């Protein structure tokens, strides 16, 4: 068979058309489309960076059911009275007005990865060239027997900030004098590793002011927890005698609750409590499961660009991702979002792609002006996001250092929320 030049050109053109077809067909305006599901630290950052840096060359849609977003970080400080709920709430107007992001307040209810579409509860269908999932967490059903979302008003989790935070704070303020606050802490891995222990600190601070004979029972299935030495030193210094931690040695891996009776059963020993903060075991937000990109509770990703191991056109950010060494934190999600945004822009518009770098720092407040932090830098390897270097606050630091650390965390809060929403 002869392969004449004319035919060769025709075949070549057809091939080129096939390769470019998904971009062209998916888009009525001739622009590639990115759909981001979840408007938190990962999703809002990714949407903002793609829209900002592509300067209009990429069509970005952000799907987020809430019109007002409450950051989980600093919600413990709200419980302690160091900040108002309004100070940790954010809206999406600037993302729409300044960067042209199409902000859709609706639930994503299905992802068709073959058709490359996202279905919304309201009935709309959004086509995408690249899909970014940043859905945060959901709770593992039956993780704490006796507890379910139906019981979350009796025993709040307050691990998705907003009304739950307000409820938990109200219950703490209404505790009888000398009453008992209990927390059922989650097993690893979970959102914000120091979060439960910062919360214990903040609850202790409030109770010390308003209810000094009250007691705190921390039921924790883990042998060890984040910044343990720092928290335990702080609890002894600020809240001596107030906090009792029951670990796995004393049955904390076998806990059930009864929200009607307000009891916690620790391996057969039934404790009466006045407030019970149940933080169940966690998994990726459910849309990740519906998209078919999870393996077990989380969604495995490639470290270099946060793409799903199941689909190169789907990226997963933040708490939902199983990426390696980074903790599940807002800072980490924000960091991952920037790597992902760069990779997505590079794939859709041929902009430069630089090597992935990741960072995390988690600040926690133990008492007024007593802040501590832990952080690390990371790089992408073939297997995972791998830790490069890190640091943690030291026990016995002077008051000025701790105060500066707290003030730094306030500065960071302003910085990261501006990086997401402004």
């Amino acid at each position, binding site marked *: 068979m002869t392969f004449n030049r004319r035919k060769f050109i025709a075949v070549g053109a057809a091939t080129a058309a096939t390769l470019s077809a998904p971009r062209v067909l998916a888009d009525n305006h001739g622009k590639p489309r990115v759909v981001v599901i979840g408007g938190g630290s990962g999703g809002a950052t990714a949407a903002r*960076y793609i829209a900002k840096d592509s300067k209009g060359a990429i069509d970005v849609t952000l799907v987020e059911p809430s019109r007002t977003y409450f950051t989980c970080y600093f919600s413990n400080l709200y419980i302690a009275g160091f900040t108002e709920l309004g100070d940790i709430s954010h809206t999406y107007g600037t993302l729409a007005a300044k960067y042209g992001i199409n902000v859709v307040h609706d639930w994503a209810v299905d992802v068709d990865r073959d058709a490359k579409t996202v279905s919304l509860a309201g009935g709309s269908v959004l086509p995408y060239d690249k899909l970014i999932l940043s859905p945060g967490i959901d709770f593992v059903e039956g993780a704490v027997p006796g507890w379910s979302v139906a019981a979350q008003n009796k025993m709040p989790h307050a691990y998705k900030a907003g009304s739950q935070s307000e409820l938990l704070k109200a219950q703490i303020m209404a505790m009888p004098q000398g009453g008992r606050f209990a927390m059922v802490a989650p097993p690893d891995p979970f959102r914000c590793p120091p979060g439960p222990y910062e919360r214990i600190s903040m609850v202790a601070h409030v109770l010390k002011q308003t209810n000094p004979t009250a007691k705190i029972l921390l039921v924790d299935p883990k042998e060890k927890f984040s910044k343990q030495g720092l928290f335990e030193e702080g609890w002894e210094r600020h809240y001596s005698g107030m906090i009792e931690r029951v670990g796995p040695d004393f049955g904390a891996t076998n806990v059930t609750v009864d929200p009607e009776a307000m009891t916690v059963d620790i391996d057969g020993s039934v404790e009466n409590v006045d407030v019970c903060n149940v933080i169940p075991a966690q998994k990726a937000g459910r849309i990740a499961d519906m998209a078919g990109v999870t393996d077990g509770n989380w969604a495995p990703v490639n470290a270099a660009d946060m793409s799903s191991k199941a689909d190169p056109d789907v990226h997963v950010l933040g708490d939902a991702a199983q990426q390696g060494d980074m903790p599940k934190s807002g*800072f980490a999600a*924000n*960091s991952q979002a*920037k790597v992902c945004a*760069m990779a997505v822009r590079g794939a859709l518009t041929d902009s*430069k792609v*630089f090597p992935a*770098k990741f*960072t995390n*720092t988690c600040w926690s407040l133990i008492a007024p002006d007593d802040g501590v*932090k832990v*952080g*690390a*830098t990371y790089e992408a390897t073939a297997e995972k996001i791998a830790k*490069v*270097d*890190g*640091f943690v606050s030291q026990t016995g630091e002077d008051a000025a250092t701790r105060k500066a650390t707290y*003030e*730094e*965390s*306030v*500065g*960071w809060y*302003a*910085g*990261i929320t*501006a*990086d997401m929403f402004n």
Partner: protein
Amino acid sequence: MTARLLLPIALTAILAAGAVRAELAGDTAAGEALYGQCKGCHEIGQGAEDRIGPHLNGLFGRRAASHTGFAYSDSMQRAGVDGLIWGFDTLDAYIENPRALVSKTRMSFRGIKDAQDRADLLAYLRRFSANPANIPEAAPTARGTDHTVDPAILAIQGDPEYGEYLSSECVSCHQVDGSTEGIPSITRWPQEDFVVAMHAYKDKLRPHPVMQMMAGRLSNEEIAALAAYFKDLD
């Protein structure tokens, strides 16, 4: 309203203590060494220009926030309107504890607790002021160097586009709009100062653990790229 009332009270207290404060004679050589803490932000001497902070030539006798061309904090502007004039006593109080005198000053400086150190520093600063008139004009002073960064490193021309990507790690904490709440601003930081500071973190000369970690894994080219990006940031 409270802030406006507080300043005159603070000034009154300073004036009452003035006799004690002014008696310490300063050593300009020791002051010059102490000025090393200031010159990351404030230039002084011949050809001095505004940087992170205003230049400090002719400081004595100047009303606070009155040097044109520098964007002062609202707090500092209010202090100027309220009558704060920079002299020995007011500067002494300010550098002892900046926020005690100007509560929301952008000057990110812990203060100098030792009275003799402050007197030394002020003696040095006074050399660059024609007013009060009995202080002689300072000799032209070359801009000192307090770093050992290789000139070849300082000469690297950074790629601002790469800097923009790398900067996404910085702006999780350092706000682009120049806010300084809890964390200092790095927006429009002069390029050389930026490079010198980052190498000081990298070499663990500057103490902050987060910055030591961040700078520690940046190459010379990456630091130059960041400096090139931040110097012109709007």
